[in-house]
């Protein structure tokens, strides 16, 4: 714990919040979205998957604030519940990707030599696949489900995390405190994951915020293509897909969930962007 509080990166992150308005706005937005997702059962005026065929394609009104879809389901309720899918997929895939990618990057940077070339070569190959298409291919092969989406999106985002973790590790391994640890007879594993990792966690967190935005966008895109969590579960991407069929007579069906996706991605990007400015030494100096 002491390595963490002594880390200037964390105080830089804290000061980013004090000075950077963009990250504040992003932070508040994302907290509101998380609250909406958590409180969906309380906030939602109706059951998100209950159909009412007599009330289909109703425009926004006093009865249903955002209208109803082609099955007569309440759109506000579906957007609130859809937030859960987006956030869960985004968060879980980023956790997996940052754990695996972060560990690979630290190992590559710390051990160096042949191991480094092997790991980073593998990462180069992964980067040769377009993110969305790799996700699409994996989901098409293993089938669409919440768990498979998380796995597929996590796989597409391991490589960037490995790169982010490797660069600072290369610098850190030459520092005195690692030298001292070696002199004390600490194992490589302990040096890598107890002494180096805490120093790069803030980089991983910042990039995690930005890549979570990317993960949510990928999930929405896959759902839009028809490879999301299967119906009748409400997901933003599949709501846009269903609404797109009524683009001429009921445009709000596609527009409202689109805005939900957009606001969430913007919020995460604003938060991550402000935080990155704060920890980037080049920008801090300016």
């Amino acid at each position: 714990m002491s390595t963490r509080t002594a880390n200037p990166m964390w105080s830089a992150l804290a000061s980013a919040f004090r000075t950077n308005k963009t990250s504040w706005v992003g932070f508040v937005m994302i907290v509101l979205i998380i609250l909406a997702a958590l409180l969906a059962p309380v906030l939602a005026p109706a059951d998100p998957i209950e159909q009412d065929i007599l009330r289909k394609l109703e425009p926004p009104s006093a009865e249903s604030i955002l209208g109803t879809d082609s099955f007569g389901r309440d759109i506000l309720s579906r957007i609130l519940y859809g937030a859960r899918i987006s956030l869960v997929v985004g968060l879980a895939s980023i956790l997996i990707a940052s754990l695996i990618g972060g560990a690979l990057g630290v190992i590559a940077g710390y051990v160096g030599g042949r191991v480094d070339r092997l790991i980073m070569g593998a990462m180069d190959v992964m980067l040769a696949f377009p993110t969305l298409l790799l996700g699409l291919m994996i989901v098409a092969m293993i089938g669409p489900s919440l768990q498979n989406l998380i796995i597929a999106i996590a796989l597409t985002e391991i490589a960037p995390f490995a790169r982010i973790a490797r660069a600072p590790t290369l610098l850190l391994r030459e520092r005195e405190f690692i030298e001292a640890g070696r002199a004390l007879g600490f194992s490589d594993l302990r040096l890598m994951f107890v002494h180096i990792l805490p120093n790069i966690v803030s980089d991983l967190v910042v990039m995690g915020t930005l890549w979570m935005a990317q993960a949510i966008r990928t999930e929405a895109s896959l759902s839009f293509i028809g490879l999301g969590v299967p119906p009748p579960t409400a997901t933003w991407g599949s709501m846009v897909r269903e609404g797109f069929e009524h683009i001429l007579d009921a445009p709000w069906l596609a527009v409202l969930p689109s805005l939900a996706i957009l606001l969430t991605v913007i919020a995460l990007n604003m938060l991550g962007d402000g935080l990155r400015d704060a920890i980037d030494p080049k920008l801090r100096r300016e």
Partner: protein
Amino acid sequence: MLRYVAKRLLFTLPILFVVATCVFQLARVVPGDPALVILGDQANAEALQALRQRMGLDRSLMAQYLSFLWDTVRGDLGLSLSSNRTVWSEISAVLPFTIELTIAATFVGVVLGVPVGVLAALRRNRVADYVTRLLSLAGLSFPAFVSGILLLLAFAVQLRWFPVVSRIVINDPLTRLHNLVLPSINLGLIMAAYVTRVTRSSMLGVLTEDYMRTARAKGLSRRRIVWSHGLRNALIPIVTVVGLYFGTMIGNSVLTEIVFNRPGVGKLILGALQSRDYTLLQGLMIVFAFFVVMVNLCTDLVYGLIDPRVKAR
């Protein structure tokens, strides 16, 4: 220069080999019998056996892998399972439409992104800079299908300036261009957001360099200093982003083609997914990965052109 090109080219071969191996593996993680997955559980035994034979599934995995590699090297991507045409003829029939779209979008992205980024850097921390930064952050947050739907609603449904469904009339270049406008603006605006940001930060770095002060001291015009001394030195990160963006652009073009109902690789992928055409998907992945690797190679080569020092390394 030739040695540099040869060296870079040689470096891409192992990547392409591993990519092909990964795609082969990926296409075989389907749980159960692929023939059963494709034909469904109502299929009779003979049909299943025939399909297995056609796909070469009755041979050993190693034999399948070797013949797959050999075929891929020769440019033979196999037969599409759903149409009986070769995978390459399926892809090459629609590829020009996608290439046309990505080139037009790259044009929009660079022509819009670079000048805006340079101006934002020159007006650092003033209103124009803040507006640019906010807009570009919003721009790169757009999933391509969301921006596509909003553009479609505004310019095709409301204003009726463009057709709701893009029709490609090969004989009429004007109609074809007209149909290209909205999709390429959709793809191009998102790309412009990335280009603007990297241009801005790269120019900010360059503007403080000593040679810029020297150029000012020599009495060169401001325009000359910014656009020829400044931008030329800021170019490498910009080219990197344009190159790296290509992978994202492929995904975005798939979504754009679906929204604007344009013929192209996007709709081919959609069809392949619906008909569970795994050889077609496999072929598409190889073609795309090949393109990404080639674009990265070109990016490296362009470095050599921009900065002669890169070649020497």
